[in-house]
């Protein structure tokens, strides 16, 4: 089975037939109310028109169009199951089609920020329920009976009184002619009526194809006459080609052409980095051709970037007192001066590359004033607009077909690699598949930032924390879009700093200047990584200094269950959500900590050189706590026999995928704690492949991961994020456990050989 894109799908009879065409001509019915929060605040908002999202064939096959990108979070399954549940469709008859990049039709498609279900649970439910109502209405008209006597259950329409019965397929064409019911008139199920939502027994919709190897990722897209390209890019950000010699490359059989691509001025946004492209008849020839190029590079202003030296620069910044004050409650400086005991610590969190298992890959065909793209993109609409700009076309002339993504983690929300394919396809007059090798991926990521977090705290005679000062120094993502402001943006600060919910009377946070020397971008959970690592490590340090149990101390410093006043703290973001609907509730944070620690049997006697560590963090409007159990050998090897992770993300729509996201977060976080980092010397990334960019393998991952789903009892509670919030507390839980096992405090990630004896 190939991945089906609706733009290429054979015309379906029945409900979908005219619907997709019609939908384009109908003004979207979304956003009547003021646009402010959540999906309303995203570009192109949301849609819930069933004619956009569902079609039913005469045979009764229900095709749900999913407009968010699948990258392993299970969105194709989860969105379809939500719609199918309200539609009362038989899961065996449900298929998924992938929407192309077209936000005016489908609503927002930026698959990031852990918000696909958060923003589209409601719209998908309404689309399914409306379609079900239309089927019932069609059957009622056909049978000449009142609609409220017609039931629609598990793909069957029935009228009890007359004994009439029909499958969904039989009524689909008639239903397609009907008006979509007014939103206010749509009757949603009550939770006890859910067939799929919240249940654990659905198979992933793409499973059959995955086990046969027939799924289509970006690398797998093929069209006739396709050529393959690789690009030698400037190794330093802002660098460019000084000169090159392609004579040896052109000798290689299969190499068709060598094309220089201009390097952009900085800041370069999502633009390709430029360099020299080799286009060939197969991937291997293109790679060999690139190896044969002789290129002289001009490095530019970042040619001396050295991440080790830069750490000292960041430390200096974090010790300076002239940073912008971004948060200020009480008088932390005075309280620190008066505190009987005072502590400070600095934490270092390195650059990271997302390194999705499938590197960035894109296929482009440009002909007759139109461009067609097949690519593994998280943001297909952004891709569409950028490709149009690049080629001098209108967005309507660009079709972006979204393939499956072999992982994303934020890397594939930037379409630089697609623009490369588009430019080369235009130049060649033939379709071009852009191939990134692992080396390309690691060298030319949009890297997770690098941070020094400095914390100071004052404790009173009883060990209570009375003063807290946090200085964060890290290059901002804003540096790729505008002349480097040298300061974090509100959304970066809102990831665990301005919304940090500790119950301390005097809190101050500052953001001293830090300049970017590499492309900085989103990496799963973004600035929550350094903020959570520093804060959760420091609390553990304070607990030890105060002679307290780290769990008890953590609960104490979080304080009693309450709703935090985010505006008062200076958080203007709250992940884009309405703070009235999504208050930061410390009771929920306490509860995940209690759940994880109880499950891990916190407080038990531990053998020598083993220990438990705990950490908790609020992000993407969800609450997560992690307890790690570690063993450190006499030579300093770290093993992790068990991790308990508890999440409260509100109602659990697809519990199996919440668990799988938590498992994945724990494993990714294990790598970040122990081995994974990107370093720079002379402006160049020093890691080339998975031998030096060390990510977890089966034997270096935690042996057991226990996921605990907390909360969700109130079906009206809005959904929290799932894809990202699992990650931030994993690293400090592990390093806190290392302290418990060895008495050695890890303040710089990754652990690497810091424990080696």
């Amino acid at each position, binding site marked *: 089975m190939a991945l089906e894109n609706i733009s290429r799908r054979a015309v379906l009879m029945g409900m979908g037939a005219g619907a997709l065409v019609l939908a384009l001509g109908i003004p979207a019915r979304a956003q009547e109310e003021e646009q402010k929060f959540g999906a309303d605040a995203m570009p192109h908002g949301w849609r819930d028109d069933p004619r956009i999202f569902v079609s039913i064939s005469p045979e009764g096959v229900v095709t749900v169009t999913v407009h968010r990108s699948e990258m392993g979070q299970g969105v194709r399954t989860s969105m379809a199951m939500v719609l199918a549940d309200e539609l009362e469709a038989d899961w065996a008859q449900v298929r998924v089609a992938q929407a192309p990049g077209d936000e005016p039709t489908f609503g927002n498609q930026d698959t990031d920020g852990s918000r696909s279900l958060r923003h589209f649970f409601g719209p998908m439910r309404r689309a399914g329920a409306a379609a079900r109502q239309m089927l019932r209405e069609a059957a009622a008209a056909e049978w000449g009976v009142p609609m409220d006597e017609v039931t629609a259950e598990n793909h069957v329409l029935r009228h009890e009184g007359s004994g009439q019965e029909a499958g969904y397929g039989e009524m689909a064409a008639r239903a397609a002619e009907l008006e979509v019911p007014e939103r206010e008139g749509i009757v949603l199920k009550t939770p006890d009526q859910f067939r799929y939502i919240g249940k654990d027994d659905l198979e992933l919709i793409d499973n059959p194809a995955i086990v046969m190897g027939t799924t289509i990722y970006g690398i797998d897209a093929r069209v006739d006459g396709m050529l393959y390209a690789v690009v030698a890019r400037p190794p330093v950000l802002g660098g460019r080609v000084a000169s090159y010699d392609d004579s040896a490359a052109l000798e290689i059989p299969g190499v068709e052409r060598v094309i220089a691509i201009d390097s952009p001025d900085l800041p370069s946004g999502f633009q390709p980095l430029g360099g020299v492209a080799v286009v060939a008849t197969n991937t291997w020839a293109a790679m060999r051709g690139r190896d044969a190029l002789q290129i002289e590079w001009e490095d530019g202003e970042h040619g001396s970037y050295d991440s080790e030296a830069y750490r000292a620069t960041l430390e200096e910044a974090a010790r300076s007192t002239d940073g912008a004050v971004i948060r200020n409650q009480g008088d932390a400086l005075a309280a620190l001066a008066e505190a009987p005991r005072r502590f400070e610590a600095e934490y270092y969190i390195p650059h990271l590359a997302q390194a999705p298992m499938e590197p960035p890959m894109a296929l482009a065909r440009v002909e007759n004033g139109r461009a067609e793209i097949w690519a593994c993109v998280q943001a297909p609409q952004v891709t569409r607009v950028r490709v149009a700009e690049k080629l001098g076309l209108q967005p309507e002339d660009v079709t972006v077909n979204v393939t499956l993504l072999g*992982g994303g983690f934020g890397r594939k929300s930037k379409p630089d690699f697609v623009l490369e394919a588009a430019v080369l396809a235009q130049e060649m007059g033939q379709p071009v598949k852009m191939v990134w090798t692992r080396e390309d991926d690691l060298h030319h990521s949009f890297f997770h930032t690098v941070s020094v977090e400095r914390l100071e705290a004052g404790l009173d005679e009883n060990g209570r924390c009375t003063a807290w000062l946090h200085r964060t120094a890290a290059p901002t993502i804003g540096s790729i879009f505008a002349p480097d402001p040298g300061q974090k943006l509100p959304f970066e600060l809102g990831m665990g700093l301005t919304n940090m919910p500790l119950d301390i009377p005097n809190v101050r946070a500052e953001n001293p200047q830090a300049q970017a020397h590499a492309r900085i971008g989103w990496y799963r959970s973004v600035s929550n990584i350094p903020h959570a690592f520093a804060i959760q490590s420091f609390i553990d340090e304070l607990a030890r200094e105060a002679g307290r149990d780290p769990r008890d101390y953590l609960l104490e410093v979080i304080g009693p269950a309450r709703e935090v006043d985010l505006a008062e703290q200076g958080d203007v973001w709250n992940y884009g959500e309405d703070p009235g609907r999504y208050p930061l509730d410390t009771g929920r944070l306490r509860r995940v900590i209690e759940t994880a620690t109880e499950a891990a049997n916190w407080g038990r006697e531990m053998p020598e050189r083993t220990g438990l560590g705990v950490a908790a963090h609020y992000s993407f409007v969800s609450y997560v706590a992690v307890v790690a159990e570690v063993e450190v050998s006499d030579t300093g090897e770290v093993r992790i026999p068990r991790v308990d992770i508890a999440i409260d993300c509100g109602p659990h729509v697809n519990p199996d995928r919440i668990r799988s996201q938590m498992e994945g977060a724990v494993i990714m976080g294990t790598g970040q704690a122990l081995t994974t980092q990107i370093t720079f010397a002379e402006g160049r990334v020093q890691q080339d492949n998975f031998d030096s960019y060390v990510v977890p393998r089966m034997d270096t991952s935690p042996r057991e991961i226990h996921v605990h789903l907390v909360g969700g009892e109130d079906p009206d509670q809005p959904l929290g994020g799932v894809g990202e919030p699992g990650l931030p507390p994993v690293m400090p839980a592990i390093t806190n456990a290392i302290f418990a096992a060895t008495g050695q405090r890890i303040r710089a990630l990754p652990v690497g050989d810091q424990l080696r004896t």
Partner: protein
Amino acid sequence: MDLTVNGEARTFGGDPDMPLLWYLRDELGLTGTKFGCGAALCGACLVHVDGVPSFSCITPMAVADGAEVTTIEGLSSDGSHPVQVAWRELNVAQCGYCQSGQMMQAAALLAETPEPTDEDIDAVMSQNICRCGTYPRIRAAIKRASGQEDA
């Protein structure tokens, strides 16, 4: 160069240095075999060459000459290999990209060691990277496919 791929006889007259991976993908259109590193570091490209699990990204066509190659597309005709069944039952995949290589590795492991211990599984499966972090389910699926109780 003559070889058999999933039971079909094939002939290749191109660069004998071309890795089997790109022959399978670019020339034959068998795209189930994936590229992850190109350097025998991740296992995304794993296929069976004469029954032996092999990194196709570093197996030159000259070496594949005369061999019988099995890819994920040929592991079974209908998805009925015990590994495929267990992978589905336990919803192992996240993005799925590494899973062709994981299943080919697991199938070879089970052919060699029908009831692998945790240590056997660690030793063999640690050659394959899953960036999504599906290792606990891969372990459980291998145990299920081998008829052993899940831990």
